[in-house]
């Protein structure tokens, strides 16, 4: 019936280019020719530029702001301050965590580089001159940098606006600088496990404050059409629909009059989830001036003000029997949230999904308590290439199990094998309440140990130790929790964390799919098309994927926390299945048989027992617009809003080998093997690319990234001169492997992979560095493992000279 019928099954599969195929990326064609369209490339007629005057002080009262000289600068059109925003009630904005954040500093500044005034001018040159010309008089206030001092009786009160409140969005608090306490697990059972334990270990583990630092900084262009009253905002938004809702709520504009467009995004890694003062000021600017206003932050602004990550001061304790079997886990966390609680988590989860801290291990009792506090640092607390606080949790348990191994004298691979949740225990409910969907941890670890000749490496290490050389082997066997999330326990500002896909099949058999997520480099245009191709039997080449325009895409919660494939990918499969169900009815009509007589094969329905009687999806598509069964609506399209029944639990086993130069403190990563199990693999090429990238970010975090503040709250090294982003020279060569344990509850069995390498990677690097010193009774070394810190350890051991 068609030329396709001449092809073999394999050829037809290849033509479809569906799930499992390493097809090249559709989006690359524009990027490799310089035709990407990032926010700073947007140029609207009459567009002007805005930028901030920022505070040089970390904590100070604003005594006066004089904008007169700035307004006299040629090309400067307006200068906004908190007082200008007050009549609009826009000088403060709600955060995703239920707190408030100053849009422009209102009477007080709370962190260095905080936004104080917004200068709008004809171009960025005029604006820069205007920013220089704004005169602000400050009165210094005592600065609080160390979160450990935040709850002291005599600590300076940072948030005077909130001092009298019993609750700043996340439950009761006990001090003006206290934000929340979050307590989970069975304290009694945990205490009991510790009381009777043969072995206990305890370690203070700081996961330092870092920044996601995507190569493209944050920015937006806001444009108000005064005639129609419609506001369009282009921006670096990982979650454009959420931004639309927030803009509607805080600006008081009806949501249908707001169009949010996320164009191409130059990497996000969590940095582009939040709502920033720059967005609000651009919106106000365009409303005031009637001209489009662009704001694009520079790198220093980016690192010092928009959405840091981590800053978890953790204390971990493990109880175990004499064989190293864990019987209890106790964790206390002091979380430094900066000046405003603007972390990006599902709203009900003040510490995100941190209670995944039992990791890959069958731990009978655990208790976790987290206190969040204010300090004079930038707000944030986003998930930097990980699901919410999962990398902090994973880092803690992966460090602690090594500490325990050293205490009981067990090999670090063996202790993991001994404590793993066993394959037959899945689905598994952890003592902290998570329902792990699927996993096979022993197989993954065994495969890695085999691939690297683990025994041989340990022998080499022993020989080197004899000679006084430092070699470390780090293992991480992590489990993530991603794909937020089931609306029964996940929402953002009350909106359930579902996601969506709408597919339209055109008469000639090509299609367009629109989704509620937004790629920042993950290759959604390619992978979603592959899912739909397999489900619909149309070539992925012929399926356009569109995201990021709230006027056209169905509502979704965006891309972060590895949620695109688990949630929107499932929506894509379900929407495609709806279309296929209708297509089956049309096919039955075309072939004049009953629906039940048809069976599906790659790209067509065929009549059972009559293999030559077929209707291809391409033919059905045309028929859907022309010759339908009696009473059927024309067209071939569907939409699905997918509320996941559960999270997915990707896992992996990583192994890292390092050599340490004890005289310089330099750590050289000799080998890194990463095995990931993300369930069904949609595009192996893209998966491998995600793993390479995530490992490189993990390497940067473990080895060098840190936001440092001096005692007066000055941020140190907030440019790429100092903030560690490794080049091709420092970056190790990566080896990858995989196992496949599909998710039983996901329509195609996929779990998500983008963040696994960061979650597992950081622990593997850090464990390797500490392991190099394990024979010298070192149990923990603080990240990042920069040369000077490692050398200090050598010096303390008397081996640094």
């Amino acid at each position, binding site marked *: 019936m068609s030329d396709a019928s001449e092809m073999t099954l394999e050829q037809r599969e290849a033509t479809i280019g569906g799930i499992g195929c390493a097809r090249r*990326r559709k989006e690359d064609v524009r990027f*490799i020719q310089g035709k990407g*369209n990032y926010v*700073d490339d947007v140029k609207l007629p009459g567009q002007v530029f805005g930028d901030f005057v920022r505070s040089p002080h970390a904590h100070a009262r604003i005594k006066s702001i004089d904008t007169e000289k700035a307004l006299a600068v040629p090309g400067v059109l307006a200068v906004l301050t908190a007082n200008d925003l007050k009549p609009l009630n826009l000088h403060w904005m709600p955060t995703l965590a239920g707190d408030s954040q100053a849009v422009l500093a209102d009477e007080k500044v709370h962190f260095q580089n905080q936004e104080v005034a917004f200068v709008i001018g004809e171009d960025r040159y005029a604006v820069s001159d205007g920013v220089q010309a704004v005169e602000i008089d400050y009165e210094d206030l005592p600065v609080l940098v160390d979160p450990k001092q935040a709850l002291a009786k005599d600590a300076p009160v940072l948030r005077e606006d909130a001092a009298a409140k019993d609750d700043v969005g996340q439950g009761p608090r006990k001090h003006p600088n206290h934000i929340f306490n979050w307590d989970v697990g069975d304290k009694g059972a945990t205490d009991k496990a510790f009381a009777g334990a043969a072995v206990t270990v305890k370690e203070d583990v700081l996961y330092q404050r870092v920044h996601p630092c995507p190569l493209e900084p944050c920015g937006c262009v806001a444009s108000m059409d005064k005639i129609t009253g419609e506001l369009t905002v282009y921006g670096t938004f990982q979650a454009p629909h959420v931004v639309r809702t927030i803009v509607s709520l805080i600006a008081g504009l009806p949501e249908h009059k707001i169009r949010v467009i996320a164009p191409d995004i*130059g990497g996000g890694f969590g940095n582009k989830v939040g709502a920033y003062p720059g967005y609000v000021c651009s919106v106000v600017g365009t409303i005031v001036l009637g001209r489009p206003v662009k704001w694009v932050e520079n790198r220093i602004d980016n690192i010092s003000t928009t959405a840091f990550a981590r800053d978890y001061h953790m204390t971990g304790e493990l109880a175990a029997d004499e064989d190293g079997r864990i019987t209890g886990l106790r964790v206390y966390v002091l979380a430094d949230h900066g000046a405003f609680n603007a972390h990006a988590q599902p709203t009900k989860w003040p510490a995100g999904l941190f209670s995944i801290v039992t990791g890959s291990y069958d731990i009978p009792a655990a208790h976790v308590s987290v206190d969040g506090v204010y300090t004079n640092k930038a707000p944030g607390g986003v998930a930097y290439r990980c699901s919410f606080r999962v990398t902090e949790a994973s880092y803690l348990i992966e460090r602690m199990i090594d500490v325990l191994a050293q205490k009981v004298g067990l090999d670090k691979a063996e202790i993991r094998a001994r404590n793993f949740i066993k394959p037959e225990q899945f689905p598994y409910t952890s003592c902290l309440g998570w329902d792990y969907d699927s996993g096979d941890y022993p197989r993954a670890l065994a495969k890695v140990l085999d691939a690297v000749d683990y025994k041989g490496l340990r022998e080499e290490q022993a020989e080197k130790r004899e000679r006084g050389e430092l070699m470390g082997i780090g293992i991480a066997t992590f489990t993530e929790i991603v794909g937020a999330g089931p609306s029964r326990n996940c929402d953002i500002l009350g909106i359930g964390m579902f996601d969506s896909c709408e597919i339209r099949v055109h008469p000639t058999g090509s299609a367009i799919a629109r989704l509620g997520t937004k790629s920042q480099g993950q290759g959604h245009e390619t992978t979603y098309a592959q899912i739909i191709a397999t489900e619909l039997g149309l070539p992925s080449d012929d399926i356009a994927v569109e995201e990021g325009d709230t006027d056209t895409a169905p509502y979704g919660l965006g891309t972060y926390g590895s949620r695109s494939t688990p949630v929107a990918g499932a929506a894509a499969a379900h929407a495609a299945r709806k279309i296929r169900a209708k297509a089956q009815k049309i096919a039955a009509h075309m072939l004049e048989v009953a629906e039940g007589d048809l069976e599906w094969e790659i790209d067509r329905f065929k009549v059972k027992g009559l293999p030559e009687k077929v209707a291809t999806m391409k033919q059905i598509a045309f028929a859907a617009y022309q010759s339908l069964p009696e009473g059927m609506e024309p067209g071939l399209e569907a939409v699905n809003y997918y509320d996941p029944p559960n999270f997915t639990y990707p896992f992996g086993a990583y192994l890292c080998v390092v050599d340490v130069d004890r005289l310089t403190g330099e750590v050289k990563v000799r080998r890194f093997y990463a095995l990931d199990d993300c369930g069904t693999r949609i595009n192996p090429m*893209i998966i491998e690319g995600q793993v390479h990238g995530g490992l490189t970010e993990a390497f940067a975090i473990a080895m060098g990234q840190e936001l440092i503040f001096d005692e007066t709250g000055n941020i140190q090294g907030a440019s790429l001169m100092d903030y560690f982003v490794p080049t091709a020279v420092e*970056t190790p060569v990566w080896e990858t492997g995989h196992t496949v344990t599909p998710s039983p509850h996901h329509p195609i069995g996929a779990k998500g992979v983008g963040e696994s390498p960061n979650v597992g990677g950081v622990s593997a690097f850090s464990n390797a560095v500490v392991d190099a010193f394990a024979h010298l009774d070192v149990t923990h070394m603080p990240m990042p493992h920069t040369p000077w810190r490692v050398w200090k350890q050598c010096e303390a051991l008397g081996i640094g000279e």
Partner: protein
Amino acid sequence: MNKTAVKMTVNGQAVEGQVEPRLLLIHFLRENLGLTGPHVGCETSHCGACTVDLDGTSIKSCTVFAVQAEGASITTIEGMANADGTLSALQEGFMQEHGLQCGFCTPGMIMRAHRLLQENRDPSDDEIRMGLSGNLCRCTGYQNIVKAVRYAADKLNGRQEAAE
């Protein structure tokens, strides 16, 4: 404000403009000429996203004033395709070897790799890594970028069959 006349050749076309002396070359290219392929990533000459080719050298156009490029011949990513409009070996290599993800570093990366291959037709992997060490990428971990440059070198050296 005093403006200065500048003339240069960009992607084979003679261009001119009246510019403030402080106008950075990256802004001349992006704002005045509408060539938005080169990007601004760090502004302190570390990230290399703004890399263009200037008189046979690769430079970071965020750290050069447009007036300093008077009389120069500049190539940006927009001028990198072959004369017949087909992709150059490097562009093809980046696509075939998955040498990009978000694409923000890609124009600078390709421009730098282009000059590297002009100076060293057959670099080793280590030489490629050194050669690209002025360009930061946050997505790929560089491994596939190295492969992409290797792909182009192989193709330019006649060691490779045409890509499928």
